[in-house]
């Protein structure tokens, strides 16, 4: 409490007037999130009291609905559930409800529907029949409780995402903190590292304050000791040390490969002295302004532990690629970086994601360097930084461009590491019991770990209807009428709320597909962690694997195919049960619909297992910007629209005036000069026409840069240097209109069935002509490789 005397009782008129004042203040606060003048320091006790009142009132609302419903007839029960659902769905369609208080109201409605369901589920449907039934019933109930908890924690995290702009540097440049850029590498191609080092060395920051280091774990003394020149480790050391020397960067290789990436960084920490550390994965190419946009936060908050920025990934994930779902739609990680992480930031719970983050050396020193107890050292480290009283900031502007794993195998390696690491934190360092971490931070970290157990609940949701339809196990004791009253509104509310919270950053059913494809892989990995929490070792995500030949990923597809099969078998069984058990027809109908839904999800997921060939090494990123082409044959510039770009070249569209069209055929091999200044400095890159396509009056030219060692830096700078370009790309992806659940469902069903069709065709072909042994994944040589040496 503040120690103020309790206010005297007010007359009703005064109370109304106070309410009006309060609402007015609330309105002004919402209109201007950041008031021009510093507000009076809020009282912590006052905030706590308001939180308690809010919680009490919200609980009272829930209680009011639940209590009234106890005495309501079936019509009322139907009405309450569906009225809440429709209210939530209708309000959520308004853009103005994306911000509080509307946003909070929609979330509260969703929470109320789910609480209502769980209250009913717990009090009414847990009926003991037989021991076997009871086991199934408890497992299903636990799975639902898990989903309920994750749903609620997700809602909490996403209450009001914070959107921070880049923070400009302040003061004279000699007062800027010094920055060390760490680029840890292990086995990635040298040319991949080269590109990143080239970009890092071009970051705009006072040169005396910036030092770039390649932390090479692929050529440690341990690796080179028993071999000699000519060995890959020796060659790697020679190449990387040479290129870093040439680019003015540092090269650090330690004695032994201890504690993987975290150990590598900790080793470097002891040999460097920058005030701040920018950590970049070796395939994460930074923009020029990454420090200009982030270091300002450290200048203003001495207790700032780290600033995290999004991972902008140029290529689609393997699942998006296989489903051909990557045109202008949000990518897999867009939801995390566009919404979830902003929500975490609002609770001071943003966490370090391993790369694209600037860390405060003081904070790292205070916690003794990066944590090494789990394979997700980044999350563990940020939790410890928070526990030591440091803050975190998440800047939404993408300032690196990286690559998604390009094969199913590398995708799995990455996901298994994340899942195992999070499970390790859950078991070894459960956030709920960490000292120094605030309540909201505990909940958010707990959610980050707990989420990864989805494979168990999802697996059981897939099998639950079969237990009833095929084996007659009674694991869900409810009549069809109750299901209509409680279960359906709850299930639909989860989807509606997901659409409301995340619909602009991810197609709804994409999450279903992701979780379905991963569940059978992650489940055994998680069990291994639960049995031996310290057993997992850090496995680096392979960065250079390519799909050389289109093929069905049998290893991944088989479990999902099995699930599809048992669900499909259960459907005719349910038909038999329909006639043999007339008393259970309502439950049989619901079980069958559940089975059908599971089958459709499995079909969608199966489509993701047909691995499609990657046609080019440097994946082209779709852009939309105005450029100019200087055509020597014409002796003048023509305006063009750049449609995509990569490190190797770009695609431009142009409409030649009649006289120019007559004078220049734009034949392959013709030299041109690509000039651009939309995102800052003026670029002028020499290129040659690689191919041309005429679409009516519009000419589309594929250009390949004619780069040499010196101009390569310009190509990298042009391609990766502008963070605003990546921000524009993300904005365009997220600006797609919201689709309804049904349309989204049909979309992915179509994609999935198309994928299954391809799978079946492929299988038929294999039956006719058995394949030769598929070539091992390999790397393609690129033009950039020539500049490494």
């Amino acid at each position, binding site marked *: 409490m503040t120690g103020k005397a309790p206010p005297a009782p007010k007359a009703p008129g005064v109370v109304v007037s106070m309410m009006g004042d*309060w609402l007015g203040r*609330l309105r002004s*606060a*919402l209109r201007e*999130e*950041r*008031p021009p003048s*510093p*507000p009076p*320091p*809020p009282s912590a006790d006052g*905030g706590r009291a*308001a*939180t308690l*009142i*809010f919680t009490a*009132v*919200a609980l*009272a*609302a829930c209680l*009011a609905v639940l*209590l*009234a419903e*106890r*005495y*309501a007839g079936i019509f*009322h029960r139907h009405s*309450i559930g569906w009225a809440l659902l429709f209210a939530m769905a209708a309000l959520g369609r308004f853009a103005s409800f994306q911000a*509080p*208080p*509307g946003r*909070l*109201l929609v979330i*509260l409605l969703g929470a109320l529907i789910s609480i209502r369901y769980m209250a009913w589920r717990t009090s009414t*449907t847990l*009926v003991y*029949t*037989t021991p076997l039934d009871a086991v199934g019933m408890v497992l299903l109930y636990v799975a639902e409780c898990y989903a309920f908890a994750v749903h609620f924690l997700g809602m909490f995290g996403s*209450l009001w995402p*914070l959107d*921070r702009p880049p*923070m400009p540097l302040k003061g004279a440049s000699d007062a800027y903190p010094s920055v060390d850029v760490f680029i840890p590498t292990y086995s990635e191609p040298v040319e991949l590292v080269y590109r990143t080092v080239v970009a890092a060395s071009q970051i705009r920051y006072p040169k005396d304050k910036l030092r770039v280091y390649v932390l090479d774990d692929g050529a440690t003394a341990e690796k080179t000791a028993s071999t000699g020149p000519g060995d890959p480790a020796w060659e790697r050391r020679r190449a990387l040390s040479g290129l870093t020397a040439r680019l003015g960067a540092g090269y650090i290789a330690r004695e032994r490969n201890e504690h993987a990436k975290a150990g590598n960084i900790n080793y470097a920490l002891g040999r460097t002295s920058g005030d701040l550390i920018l950590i970049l994965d070796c395939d994460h190419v930074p923009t020029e302004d990454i420090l200009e946009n982030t270091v300002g936060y450290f*200048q*203003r*908050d*001495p*207790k*700032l532990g780290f600033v995290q920025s999004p991972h902008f990934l140029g290529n689609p994930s393997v699942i998006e690629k296989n489903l051909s779902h990557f045109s202008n739609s949000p990518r897999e990680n867009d939801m995390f970086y566009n919404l979830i992480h902003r929500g975490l930031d*609002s*609770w001071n719970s943003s966490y370090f994601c391993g790369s694209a983050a600037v860390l405060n050396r003081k904070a790292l020193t205070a916690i003794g360097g990066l944590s090494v107890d789990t394979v997700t050292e980044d999350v563990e480290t940020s939790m410890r930084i928070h526990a030591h009283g440091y*803050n975190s*900031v998440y800047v939404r502007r993408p300032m690196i461009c990286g690559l998604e794993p390009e094969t199913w195998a590398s995708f799995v390696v990455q996901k298994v590491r994340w899942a195992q690491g999070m499970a390790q934190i859950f078991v070894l360092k459960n956030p709920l019991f960490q000292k120094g971490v605030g309540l909201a931070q505990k909940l958010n970290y707990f959610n980050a770990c707990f989420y990864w157990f989805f494979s168990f609940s999802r697996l059981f949701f897939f099998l639950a209807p079969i237990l009833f339809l095929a084996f007659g196990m*009674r694991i869900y*004791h*409810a*009549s069809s*009428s*109750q299901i209509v009253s409680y279960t359906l509104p709850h299930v639909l509310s989860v989807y509606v709320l997901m659409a409301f919270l995340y619909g602009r950053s991810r197609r709804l059913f994409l999450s279903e597909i992701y979780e379905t494809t991963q569940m059978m892989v992650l489940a055994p990995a998680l069990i291994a962690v639960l049995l031996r929490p310290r057993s997992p070792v850090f496995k680096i995500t392979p960065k250079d694997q390519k799909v050389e030949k289109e093929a069905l990923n049998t290893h991944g597809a088989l479990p999902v195919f099995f699930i599809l099969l048992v669900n499909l078998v259960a459907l005719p069984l349910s038909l038999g049960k329909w006639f043999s058990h*007339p*008393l259970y027809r309502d439950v049989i109908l619901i079980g069958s619909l559940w089975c059908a839904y599971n089958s459709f999800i499995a079909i969608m997921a199966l489509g993701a297992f047909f691995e499609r060939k990657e046609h080019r090494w440097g994946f082209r990123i779709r852009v939309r910007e105005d450029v100019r082409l200087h055509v020597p044959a014409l002796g003048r510039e023509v305006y063009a629209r750049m449609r995509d770009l990569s490190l190797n070249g770009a695609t431009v569209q142009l409409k030649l005036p009649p006289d120019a069209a007559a004078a220049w055929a734009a034949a392959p091999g013709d030299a041109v000069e690509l000039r651009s200044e939309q995102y800052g400095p003026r670029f002028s890159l020499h290129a040659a026409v690689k191919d041309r396509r005429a679409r009516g009056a519009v000419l589309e030219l594929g250009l390949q840069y004619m780069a040499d060692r010196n101009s390569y830096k310009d190509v990298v700078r042009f391609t990766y240097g502008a963070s605003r370009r990546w921000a524009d790309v993300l904005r365009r992806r997220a600006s797609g209109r919201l689709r309804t659940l049904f349309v989204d469902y049909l979309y992915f069903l179509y994609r999935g069935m198309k994928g299954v069709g391809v799978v079946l065709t492929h299988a038929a072909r294999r039956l006719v002509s058995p394949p030769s042994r598929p070539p091992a994944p390999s790397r393609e040589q690129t033009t950039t490789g020539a500049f490494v040496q």
Partner: protein
Amino acid sequence: MKNRVIFALILALLSRSWPAAAAPAPAQGPKTVKVGLDQFSKFKTVELKTISTSFPINFSIPDRWRPAGVRLSLHYVNSVTLIHQSSQLTVSLNGHPIGQTRLDPARPDGVLLIDVPAGRLSPGYNTLNFSVAQHYQDSCEQWDSPNLWTSLDLEGSFLEMTYFERSVPANLSKAVDFLFDAKAFPHGEVHVVVDIASADSVETAGALAAGLARRFGYKKVLFTASDAIVPGRDNVVVGPKEFAEAAAARAGLTLDVGGSVLQVSPLPVGRDAEGRSLTDPTRGLVVVSGKDAAEVRRSALTLGTMSIPVPGSARTEVSGVSLPETAPYAGSRLLQAGKDYSFKSLDFRTYTFRKVNPLATDIVFRLPNDYRIEPNKYMTLMLNFIYGPGMQAASSLTVSVNNEVARTIPLDKMAGDFITGYRLDLPTYLFKPGMNTLTFTSYLTPKGGDCEMILPDSYFMTLYDNSTLRFPGMTHFTRLPEIGLFMDDGFPYTRWRDGRECEIFIARADHGLLAAAFNVLGFMTQKCEHALFAARVRVGVPGAAGPAAPEKELIVIGGLDSLPPDFFDGAPLKLGKGSDSSHPAPGWGESPRFAAARQSGGIDPDDGLLMQFQSPAMRGRSTLLLTAVSDEKVVRLSRLLLLPALSAQMRGALVFVDLKAEADNKVTSVPARDGYWTGKLGRISALTYFLHVYPYTNYLLAALLLLLAGLLGTYVLVRIRRRRLAVAEGRDAGR
């Protein structure tokens, strides 16, 4: 004269135990009664299928009959495809064949007449068994061919029984069984002699009527009442010493009541010219008396409960009686929640299904009529059974609830099996409050081809009576008015099985109305299978004009002219004030809708009326009104309640019964327009009451709270947000 003296001496010797010497009325000749076989069965026709099957019928012979002979007239129709030489119908009585006939395809419609010797009949219950052996070809025949059938027309078949009436035993315990016999045919009749001016006597007579009705089991019993002994019927005199002695004296019997007394004697029918008492030996007089009201009640309760052959004399003096403790919802075959009941305790005996088409068997039990059947609960059956070898996998035991198939157990082991504790969970929504029937049907399918020899007797399945059932716990809470519940087991008057919550008012001090009250008491007693000893019968109309309405469940019996207009204030039909009435309006919606009308004219003089409505004395309590334009019609109405075919049609809040003639009786039931709840939900808090009565207000409150929570939450978030931004932007960095 000499012969008359000798005869009188012999009679005196025979009846030396009678309390007073009496001369019997002249002996009567044999009597004959003809009864349709459908009176002993729930079926009008029975079809006997397959190569061998049978159908039993049980009939009873009252103790007071000495059978002289029985003639059976059996009408049957057989299939025209049967083989005359090898198809036959056999009738057995108590296991002994008494007649048979070939089933002639040339004359498929036949009547079998059998004279049954009296010696074949057993006292009490007898079983007639009709069995057929029928074939449609000599070999390789299909045992269940549709060609194999014989139909018994029970409605067109008769038992014609000739009997002499026995004399009433001179032994009180035997005489009670003799007079109030559950085997009485076609129904029981009792005349109660009571002083209607005495409130105590009326109340005790009510308890006595309940006790006597219980003695009759399920046999309908008609009561009459007066203040004098009437000839030709069994009379029960109930009242204090003075009244009983005066009533006996008027009939020619000298009675000396020294204390709480029970006495039986042949019915005195007056005195002869010489002043000697004349008696009817085939009718009895039971005296239930004492020096004061308490002694009379003691005697009445003793008469209602005595069940062993004690006393062996015609008279007994009762010095004390106590009844067993009872509890709400306790009673015969009335199931309580959470308790295991063996089938045996529900009158089910180990039953064997034999041959290929055995008869079904069932368990009839009762659930409390205010049982609130809740969803997602299950009744549990634990079955113990055995079945024989050699049956096809299609053989099964089917369990049906109220004629709806609920579960099927496959009997699919070729070698047969013995199974204990086979658990079946039946959803409770299959059951209903009141009477329920659990039917077990076994389909035994023999293994083998058409030409293989089949031994039907080797196919069997036995269900043991140590199998159990259990109902889950549920609350007692139901909506009234619902006369159907009263007709089912007397609810809500029988919630306590001794009737302590029941009070019956007769509108006027009239013996006819009192008999109607006894009929209603007897009806409730037989429905709930427990004598309502604690129910009270009183004279008057409860309310402003009469005695204060007690806070109990009320039944009011009386003609319309004796009911004040105010009495109808809460009634569904306000007869006292211009006949306000509600007419169900079909087609106005799914639930019953009503059109209100104010009409003149009252009710049809030939109609009886039952109405149920909330008691003016207490919320949740009920008043049931039996009325008609006159008291005589009310008495007739009370008798019609006892006809199962009519009472089964009575439901809702209002029932009109056409009283003209039994054959034309028509029942019109009207559903309740307004209702009230009764039951035991426990104490209801103000919050509960508010939520129950004003749900919409609560929804509005919830919506407002939700809105408020949204605003408050926003306020909290804004504060947190400001703090976060201030720290990050260095405006509050010191904090």
